[in-house]
Structures are given as C-alpha cells and as structure tokens.
C-alpha cells in the first residue's frame, strides 16, 4: 500500500513551489486559510470590519499573493504569514480610505522590506484595475467565458475543449475561441481609460 498522503501542511518554500508548479491549488490555498485567516480576520474586525469583510479581503489577499509569487516577486525576505498579513492590511487600509474611515487599531508589523512593500502596492493596484474590468467577463456570455477559461486558465488543449463543450469538431472550438477573444478585446476597447491603466501596469510589471 502506498503510504503517501495528500500534503496538508507546507513550509514557506513548499508553498511557493506549489503555487508555481502544482496544477492543483486546493491544498495550498487551504493551508494558507488555516494558518493565516484568523490573524487577518482579527485585524479587520478590530478596525471597523465585519466577518464578511474578513472573508472578502482575505480572499483578495490570497489572489494578490499568488500573483506576486507567480511573477517571481516573492523573495522570502519575510515569512509568508507576515507578507500575507501585510497585503491584507494594505487592502483593508485602502478600503477604509475609500470609505473615509480611519484605522481604529494599527499593529506594527513591518517585518518586510521597502521593496516588498512596493511590490505589494503595485500588485494591489494591478488587482484593483483587473477587478474593475471583471464585469466585462461577466457580460461576455457563458459559452465564451467557459471556452476562454478552459483555454487560458485551465490550459486545456483544444482537442479536449471541443469535446467538453460539445462542439462537433476541434475547428469549431478554435473558431469560437477566436471570436470570443475578439469580443473581449472589443469590450476592453470600449473602456479606454481602464485599458490604458491596465496597459501601463502590464508594461511596468
């Protein structure tokens, strides 16, 4: 009998490797929640937030963290716990600023470098711009959204996509993907300001 079990606990190095190389994010995301959610939630609850805010902003922090790691910008100068906490704190600060509210209780947890702080701020900025544009995907239509996700997010080959989507041939799926991508690009063109912001972030990143 094989004694290997699904990994549920990770060192910081293993988290980074799993995010960069594993096809399955499930166990590593669960690990991040188990080890970091409560401290972030306590911070948010102590600063005018509620449980729902804690859920939303921790989820956002994980997205930002994964993007930083995948861009190779997590250098391990501070622990993942400190880093993730810092991302969530920055996100929540921005939210309070947006609502013209002040922090009630600030914790001094600056165990990270200036460069890390800069990376976090840039990634949060990029995240916000992308979030503003997400509505485009919502209005793209289910089939278009699905085929683009299967190809660009799941990285599935066209021969598998056409079967899963129920198209008659691979060529039909290729045409569909091409049309959907053009539709999405057209939608982006309808928002020139946001597109320009997005472009400058991608160029600088």
């Amino acid at each position, binding site marked *: 009998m*094989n004694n290997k079990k699904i990994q549920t606990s990770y060192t910081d190095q293993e988290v980074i490797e799993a995010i960069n190389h594993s096809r399955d994010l499930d166990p590593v995301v669960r690990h991040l929640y188990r080890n970091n959610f409560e401290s972030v939630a306590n911070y948010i609850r102590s600063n005018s937030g509620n449980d729902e805010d804690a859920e939303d902003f921790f989820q956002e922090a994980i997205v930002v963290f994964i993007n930083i790691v995948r861009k190779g910008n997590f250098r391990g100068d501070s622990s993942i716990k400190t880093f993730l906490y810092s991302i969530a704190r920055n996100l929540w600060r921005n939210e309070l600023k947006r609502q013209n509210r002040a922090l009630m209780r600030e914790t001094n947890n600056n165990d990270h470098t200036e460069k890390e702080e800069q990376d976090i701020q840039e990634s949060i900025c990029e995240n916000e711009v992308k979030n503003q544009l997400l509505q485009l995907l919502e209005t793209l239509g289910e089939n278009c959204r699905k085929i683009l996700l299967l190809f660009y*997010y799941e990285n*599935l080959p066209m021969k598998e996509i056409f079967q899963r989507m129920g198209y008659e041939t691979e060529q039909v799926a290729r045409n569909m993907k091409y049309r959907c991508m053009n539709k999405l690009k057209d939608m*982006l063109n309808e928002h020139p300001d946001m597109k320009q912001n997005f472009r400058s972030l991608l160029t600088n990143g």
Partner: protein
Amino acid sequence: MDNMNEMNQAELIDRYLQGDLGTQELQQFQVRMQADEELRQTVEDTQMAQSLVEHYGLRNEIKAIRAAMQAEGNATLPEETIAPVVEEPRLLTQEVDEDVKAVPMFQWAGRIAAGLTLLIVGFLTIQYTTLSPERLYEEKITSESPYLGLSNRSMEDREDTLADQVRVEYQFGNYEEVIRLYGELENPTFAETFRAGYAYLQQERTEQAIDSFQQVMQDEDAFMIKDKAEYYLALAYLQDGQIETAVSMLEKIHESDDHIYEDSLSSFYLWRLRLLKMKY
C-alpha cells in the same frame, strides 16, 4: 488579412505569450513585432485579455475552495451555541432589585445551580431525543460535489470521453447521469469511482457508495484523494446506520492532525456522535 490568416496569427500570438515558440520562430516573430506596430498592439491587447481571464479564473477557484471549506466545516452547530447556558445566571445577578438582595447568597447560588441544571438537562434531552444518524449525516453532506483537486490537465492525453462526461456531470451535480455513465466505463479510474461513490451517496444507494469508496481507499494510485474517500466512506456508513464503524472512523479522522477533514469535525459534532452511539 482574411479570417483564416487572422486566426492563425491569433494562435501564433497565443503561443508567443505562452512561451511555446521555438528559438527560430521566436526570433522571426520578434523581428516582425519590431517592424509592425499593429502586430505589437494586437499582442498587447491579447496579453491584457488573457491576463483578465486568468484573474477571473484564479478568483473563482479560490472562492470555490473557500466555499468548499465552509461547506465542509459549517454544517455542524458552532460550539459557541452552548455558551448562553453559562451566560444566563450572570444576567440574573446583575438585575436583582433591593428585596431580592436580602435573600442570602447561598439561596441564589442554589437557584442558579438548579436553573443551570434544568437548562443542561433540557439541552441534553433535546439533543438525545432529536439525535439520529440521518440528522448527523445531513449536517455533513452538501448538494455540491466535493472538489477532487485532480486537475483536468492531468487528463490531457486521454481520449476517454465518457470519463470526461462523468467528471462534468459530477461537477454539475447530475448524479443520476454520473451513475449511468460510470456504468458504461470499461476501465474506470479511482477518480471516476470516487465520483460514482459520491453520486450513489447522494442517491441514497448506500451499499454501492460504500463499495465505491472502499475501492478508492484500496487503490494505491488514489493517495491524492484517500482522505476524501475515507471521510465520505464514514458518512456512507452513517447513512447506512452502521454507527459504530462510522463513529470510529470519524473519531480517527478528527484525531489525525494531517487529515484534510480534521478541521471539518468539531468537538461538539464528535460529542453528538458518541451520544448517538450510546442511543443506538
């Protein structure tokens, strides 16, 4: 440029952005980009659109994982719900009037103790009388199928479309269809057997659910989902009324620090399971 050429170019751009071009092809493409502003623009637009799709996918995946964690963990009553039983007397002592103050403290202590005892007895009676394997099972099972964590990409090279259909129907919760398609598979893998097991569980075909999860547990290649199979096998035993076996398996899961369902079983749920064992 005609439509076919445009499509070929779009696919070339995809391959460029995914880093899939060979050295020579890459050099040629870079030279073209330097000379062709329109092409450079198209590459940028494609990169933005792709990045947006990836962002959408990542957010949704994390949201789904969190939802699964909550569904696995929240089905039980939070332990805090017992707290008011202890909190009640404090309120009583804070609200006493002058006459009541004249009553000796030990009498109050006695009344409080009696009140507490009544509340605890009442609570235990309700728990005991309403406790059933069905109730504990229902608290843990959700209509949403558990995410297996076996990436679709691992199936890239497979031609078995029936297996793909099993996976899709499972994801959409069409359990009757999962069972039907599973029956047509000649050589099901442990993943399809797990999905069939879960479908049987949902359809209350308990014996077949138990058999499927046992098969997954015995499959050496299934180590990735062994914890999930073990957890749902325990729930299948619970559904089947095999209480001792179910309780012993769930206790073992709760005590195992590295079991992925360890967090899903609260001490309160375990306590009720033990109570259930006493009852039956």
